[in-house]
């Protein structure tokens, strides 16, 4: 028999991307080596896995879930119980594998809840998931043995003898554990998008009727995807349990699920790497903002609305569009209107920020005096001048924005129109 000829090109681009990703994960703690940034990085890692798993539903399956924290949260609870059992000596389990326990637990709950939720798609699916998350959250107060009531369940990740010097006591070791699972999970979830199931779930998202006509049971496809997604969510929960050493009922709440939705959508659901960006940016933003201002939830909500209205592709979508323009060498044409509109928006946002901060100070902290710090300045909220300045900034910014936006919109629209025309002719 003749030797079979096969063509296997080296996919250099993919190797560079994944190698760079691994390198980034490995080197990040060397650059950001303070205690705060390490714990922040660990948190980003766990949230990234959760957001990526959430995007398996929202981005790849078109399933808008309001209850994804159920799987990560219940995974976290089972993981911390497993950790406590292992610490007590009744379960021979290394800490390294505790996230896997969380993942299997999340998967088991996915099997149970997913059967009910995935019977429907679209808006009904969204409502059922909301019902499930409220159900589980209400249960958390009914079963204090498992959920630990108000105080939650706490554990200790340093158990047994150190293995090769790894005890998981120092935060750095926990970070590397998280980074390891993050890399493995990211690779596995990317591999999922290349499997037949990962492909057909896209078809079920885009046109369920046709997917049924070519012989696929849409319920089954959604169900299987949800089970796998719940597995990765559970891994993220297990890592969070190790990282924080405490799991409370808040981990299974609707608020936590909503945060996952916000983060993933802000990152961009249309791209595989979107949720990574979203998790990175939003965890930083929420941690930083909540230090700086009491109004951070308002900013996050407004930012989310702005993304929904103006950039439904999320940050990843914005990046991809800009890259496309740059690739076709048309950036010079949109550059001038772009910086003008960005500058105008910055002025507008500064004014809005000042107004909101002073309003917050007036209504919530007026008991502690009327002065506050704003942009490094001492500001008296009882005086008229700061208000006039803030409102003037806001007004001027809005006027500038309204004046510069049409030119940008036109240049942007024309450049993208030409690119699409080129793509059509090429095809």
């Amino acid at each position: 028999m003749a030797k079979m000829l096969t063509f296997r090109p080296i996919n250099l681009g993919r190797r560079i991307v994944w190698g760079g990703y691994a390198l980034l994960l490995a080197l990040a703690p060397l650059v950001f080596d303070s205690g705060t940034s390490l714990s922040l990085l660990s948190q980003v890692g766990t949230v990234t896995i959760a957001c990526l798993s959430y995007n398996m539903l929202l981005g790849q399956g078109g399933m808008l879930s309001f209850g994804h924290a159920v799987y990560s949260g219940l995974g976290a609870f089972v993981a911390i119980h497993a950790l406590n059992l292992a610490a007590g000596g009744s379960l021979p389990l290394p800490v390294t594998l505790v996230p896997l326990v969380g993942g299997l637990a999340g998967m088991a709950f996915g099997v149970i809840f997913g059967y009910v939720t995935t019977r429907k798609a679209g808006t009904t699916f969204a409502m059922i998931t909301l019902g499930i998350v409220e159900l589980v959250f209400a249960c958390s107060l009914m079963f204090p043995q498992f959920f630990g009531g108000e105080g939650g369940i706490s554990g200790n990740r340093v158990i047994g003898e150190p293995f090769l010097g790894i005890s998981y006591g120092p935060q750095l070791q926990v970070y590397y554990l998280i980074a390891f699972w993050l890399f493995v999970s990211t690779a596995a979830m990317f591999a999922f998008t290349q499997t037949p199931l990962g492909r057909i779930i896209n078809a079920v998202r885009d046109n369920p009727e046709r997917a049924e006509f070519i012989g696929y049971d849409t319920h089954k496809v959604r169900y299987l995807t949800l089970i796998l997604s719940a597995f990765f969510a559970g891994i993220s929960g297990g890592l969070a349990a190790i990282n924080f050493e405490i799991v409370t009922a808040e981990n299974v709440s609707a608020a936590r699920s909503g945060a996952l939705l916000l983060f993933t959508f802000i990152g961009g659901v249309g791209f595989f790497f979107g949720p990574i960006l979203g998790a990175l940016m939003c965890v930083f933003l929420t941690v930083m903002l909540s230090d700086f201002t009491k109004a951070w939830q308002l900013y996050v909500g407004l930012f989310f609305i702005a993304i929904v209205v103006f950039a439904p592709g999320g940050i990843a979508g914005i990046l991809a569009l800009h890259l496309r323009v740059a690739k076709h060498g048309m950036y010079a044409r949109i550059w001038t209107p772009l910086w003008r509109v960005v500058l105008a928006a910055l002025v507008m946002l500064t004014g809005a920020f000042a107004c909101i901060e002073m309003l917050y100070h007036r209504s919530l902290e007026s008991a502690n005096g009327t002065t506050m710090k704003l942009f490094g300045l001492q500001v008296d909220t009882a005086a008229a001048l700061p208000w006039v300045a803030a409102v003037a900034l806001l007004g001027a910014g809005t006027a500038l924005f309204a004046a510069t936006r049409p030119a940008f919109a036109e240049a942007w629209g024309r450049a993208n129109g030409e690119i699409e025309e080129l793509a059509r002719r090429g095809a």
Partner: protein
Amino acid sequence: MEFTLITLLNGLSYGLLLFMLSSGLTLIFSMMGVLNFAHASFYMFGAYFAYAISSKIGFWPALLLAPPLVGVLGALVERYGLRAVHKYGHIHELLFTFGLSYVMVELVQLIWGRAAVPYAIPKELDGPLFTLYTTTFPMYRGFMMLIALLMLVSTWLLLTRTRIGLVIQAALTHPDMAEALGHNVPRVFMLVFGGGCALAGLAGVIGGNAFVTEPGMAATVGSIVFVVVVVGGMGSLAGALLASLLIGIVQTFAVALDHSLADLLARLGAAPTPDTFGYPVLTLTISQVAPILPYLLLVLVLIFRPRGLLGRREG
């Protein structure tokens, strides 16, 4: 007997309040296909507007003024927010209202602070309506039921007996045809959205002082209202009424009952001990289970009757 009657009445009044909330939601859903996630936030705004107005000029002007104010707010949201994302599809509209619910709760805290505000029942309505055996039934509960019933009847009359109601129904089933006949369908959508929000606002005006007016009040009823809409059948007004009454009565009875499976077994002569399998489940009392009952009902309905109690279509 006394307990049953009073609890039934309380359940009815709670159920009717739920219906006021869910009717607007289901109306908006059946017309525009949008599940307004921020619906409960409009309820909260109704309560806060009523508090602000009633502290200046009294409760009765507030009852008249606050719902239209909330309605205008809702219409503005539809005109300048929802309409812009309409082209991206229903999921984006849902996401928009989801973001809106975050912003609205923060706005309330920005204006009125984080603590509950003292929004009290007006003096004219403070007091017992009648006494049943030994328990008194508050006049305000009766007032709530009256308002809810009036609203139910007037909404039904508006939708079935007036010209605008006919246009709404036409736009609901055949939007293109209604538009071709010269009706401004986007404006009808705006009106319906504003009207639905006004109904939520009305519920806020009379619910805010019966319960507590605080920034968390939207979250406490929010998910229950969705349960009502799904259980009743998406888009069915009669189903919403049935489901609200069902959930209102079941929940009111459940929180008042202090029995558990263990009690039942003990009465049957098989008292469980802490060693019995599933002992924590057996000792749960009905009142402890009460918070999960609506969600349990939701799951059961979806398994056995996926289109809801009175829903016509599936999907």
